[in-house]
């Protein structure tokens, strides 16, 4: 043999293979103990890893739900407290519309009065300034004071915020008798007591204290309406020795005629109105920025409602008829019996084969559906995490001509009795056919059997969206779900055949209580409004396990079920996500 052929098989190789391939050697006695230790360590590691994963998952779920709850609470409370519903600084400075009817009580009157203080202020200043200037000049000044924002000389809000040392709200003070639609008639003539809702004049000089038309810094003057003032002036005259006499300045501010006063008031109101509108515009200009800031934080969240009509394939077969023994040759009472006897074996075997073929041919998916409510969180610009809760009802049906009859023998009396006839499917689901004998009989009329499974689902998934244009987008979604079995049933339309119905906590149920599934979907979406989108696309849902809890115990072959459907979902974006 040449050296060139040294790499080829020859008798040497055969001899070594013959001697060594199946050779045995005794390992060290403690080797198993070492392996056992390694396995224990590995199991502990796996357990810890799994425990850590579940802990993290639980924490993530908790955080997610807490965030969702907090966000929803914030969102809805925020919508109730919109700036428009609560008076802001600018709005407070603007004059309120005149009330349609006079308030009934003093408190109501004062409350309403406070809302109109700007109007009163305008009037008060009008008369104060008229002592030295012309009516036109006074009107301009009134308007400037009424605005209280741009002028900045004496803003009403700033005044309201200034603490006063004098008498407070609720104190009585002397005013000239007259009528105010909010205060009512003052009870005393000449030196009557009124009710003060605001502050008191800051300066306590005798000439200005209690003066209706006290000039700068007087909160007191601002609470009197034009109507009140006009009537007061018509009916009262200053008296000497009065405790709080009306000063000359006030008297000098007395208008020349009601027509002038009316004009002044109209002009004042128009000016105030314009100022208020300007203030509103300023406010509106500032508001979007703050709203944008608020909604930007919210815009990562969305609510999703999905409806998925589908067809469901339960993927459960029937036992192969060839594996059924021809007869029970063993001892019937032996624990090691080979199997139940089959009555009228030839006919039954034919029926078993026919039932098997019939089941395979006639079983078809039935209308099934799933509904889900999910909260979405935008992870990236186009990627969204969705999780929530759902419900699914999966159905399948078949038509059959055969029923299974099973018989038991009572041990003591040796008497045979029959169990309720069932469908071939039901018998094959669990460790069926465990009776002493089985008969598969043909029925007169065919009957329908419906298989129904209801699950509570907890889905978690990711959705990727890509814009086609302004209104349309495409999406791809994938996720997993935990499906908790609520109810399962096999219902036959034949009265003779026993229908079975299992609830979630039914011990006898052969079906799996918790089932995990994966789903994928692609489709298109349309933006109905800036916040609302509608998406549509096919969805495939595949279960990771068989429907039957222990497929090894089932006589029938068990596959993993799946459903194919159409996903229709509505997505509402919280906040203003799309600009």
């Amino acid at each position, binding site marked *: *043999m*040449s*050296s060139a052929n*040294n*790499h080829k*098989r*020859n*008798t*040497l*190789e055969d*001899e*070594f*293979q*013959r*001697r*060594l*391939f*199946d*050779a*045995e*050697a*005794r*390992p*060290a006695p403690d*080797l*198993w103990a*070492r*392996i*056992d230790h*390694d*396995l224990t360590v*590995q*199991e502990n590691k796996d357990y810890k890893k799994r425990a850590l994963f579940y802990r993290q998952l639980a924490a993530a779920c908790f955080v997610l739900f807490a965030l969702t709850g907090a966000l929803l609470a914030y969102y809805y409370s925020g919508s109730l407290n919109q700036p428009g519903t609560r008076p802001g600084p600018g709005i407070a400075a603007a004059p309120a519309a005149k009330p349609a009817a006079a308030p009934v009580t003093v408190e109501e009157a004062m409350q309403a009065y406070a809302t109109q203080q700007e109007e009163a202020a305008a009037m008060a200043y009008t008369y104060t300034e008229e002592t030295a200037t012309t009516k036109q000049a006074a009107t301009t000044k009134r308007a400037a004071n009424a605005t209280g924002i741009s002028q900045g000389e004496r803003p009403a809000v700033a005044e309201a915020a200034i603490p006063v040392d004098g008498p407070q709200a609720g104190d009585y003070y002397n005013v000239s008798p007259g009528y105010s639609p909010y205060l009512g008639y003052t009870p005393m003539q000449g030196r009557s007591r009124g009710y003060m809702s605001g502050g008191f004049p800051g300066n306590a000089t005798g000439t200005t204290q209690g003066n209706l038309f006290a000039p700068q810094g007087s909160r007191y003057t601002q609470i009197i309406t034009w109507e009140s003032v006009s009537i007061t002036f018509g009916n009262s005259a200053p008296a000497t020795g009065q405790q709080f006499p009306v000063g000359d300045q006030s008297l000098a501010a007395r208008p020349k005629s009601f027509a002038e006063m009316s004009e002044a008031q109209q002009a004042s109101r128009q000016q105030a109105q314009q100022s208020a509108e300007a203030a509103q515009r300023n406010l509106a200009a500032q508001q979007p920025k703050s709203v944008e800031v608020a909604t930007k934080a919210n815009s990562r969240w969305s609510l999703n409602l999905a409806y998925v009509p589908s067809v469901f394939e339960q993927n459960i077969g029937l*036992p*192969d*008829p060839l*594996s*059924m*023994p021809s007869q029970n040759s063993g001892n019937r009472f032996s624990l090691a*019996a*080979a*199997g*139940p006897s089959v009555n009228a074996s030839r006919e039954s075997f034919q029926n078993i084969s026919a039932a098997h073929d019939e089941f395979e041919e006639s079983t078809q998916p039935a209308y099934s559906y799933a509904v889900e409510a999910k909260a979405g969180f935008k992870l990236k610009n186009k990627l969204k995490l969705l999780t929530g809760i759902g419900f699914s009802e999966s159905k399948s049906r078949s038509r059959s001509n055969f029923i299974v009859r099973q018989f038991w023998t009572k041990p003591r009396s040796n008497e045979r009795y029959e169990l309720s006839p069932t469908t071939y499917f039901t018998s*094959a689901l669990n*460790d069926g*056919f*465990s009776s002493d004998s*089985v008969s598969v009989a043909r029925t007169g009329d065919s009957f329908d059997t419906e298989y129904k499974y209801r699950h509570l689902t907890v889905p978690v998934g990711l959705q990727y969206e890509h814009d086609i244009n302004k209104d349309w987008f495409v999406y791809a979604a994938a996720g997993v779900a935990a499906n908790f079995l609520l109810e399962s049933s096999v219902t036959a339309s034949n009265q003779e055949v026993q229908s079975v119905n299992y609830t979630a906590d039914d011990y006898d149920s052969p079906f799996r209580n918790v089932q995990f599934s994966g789903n994928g979907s692609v489709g298109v979406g349309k933006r109905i409004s800036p916040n609302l989108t509608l998406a549509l696309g096919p969805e495939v849902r595949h279960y990771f396990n068989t429907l039957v809890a222990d497929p*090894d115990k089932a*006589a*029938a072959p068990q596959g993993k079920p799946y459903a194919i459907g159409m996903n229709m979902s509505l997505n509402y974006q919280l906040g203003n996500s799309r600009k």
Partner: protein
Amino acid sequence: MKLFTKPKSDEDKLIEGCIAGKRDMQRLLYDLYSRKMMAVCMRYAPTSFEAEDMMQEGFVKVFANIQNFKRDCPLEFWVRRIMINTALKQLRQKSLMTVSHETEEVGNIASEGVNLTGYSMDELLGMIQSLAPRYRMVFNLYAIEGYNHKEIGEMLGISEGTSKSQYSRARAILQGMLERQEKTYQENVISQ
């Protein structure tokens, strides 16, 4: 009792028990294959201590991955393959895959009429263990496991030609060992 299902083989039960993590089933599997696998490991390892390490790691892998066993071949082959892969990995980790240049002169040795009947298993294992790691590996894989040179090349990350040349050298070394043993034996017989 199931009427329509095939009765499960003992091997199926054993596998399912191991998948479920039942320690008694794992022990059973170990007892079933430990002797054969020990012999396998001893062929690949230079010493019995290293063979035991190899086997320990191999069985832990077997139990950790038994759920991936497709049942398309006998379980023993699958376990054996894991042991071989473990041996390959350990040898790689220990950087023993480089070929040591044997100083021994190897000639063209005819292999006709080789009969190993007179050798004990320990002697044969000793010869294989005395080979350089890569020669030992290639020889084991080709002569005993039955892989071809292409497969060996893929397993070891070498070319088919390299595998052939290394095997050729390993074979020649073994032939030389056998001849020396034979010569010694004959000398002993003559002297007696």
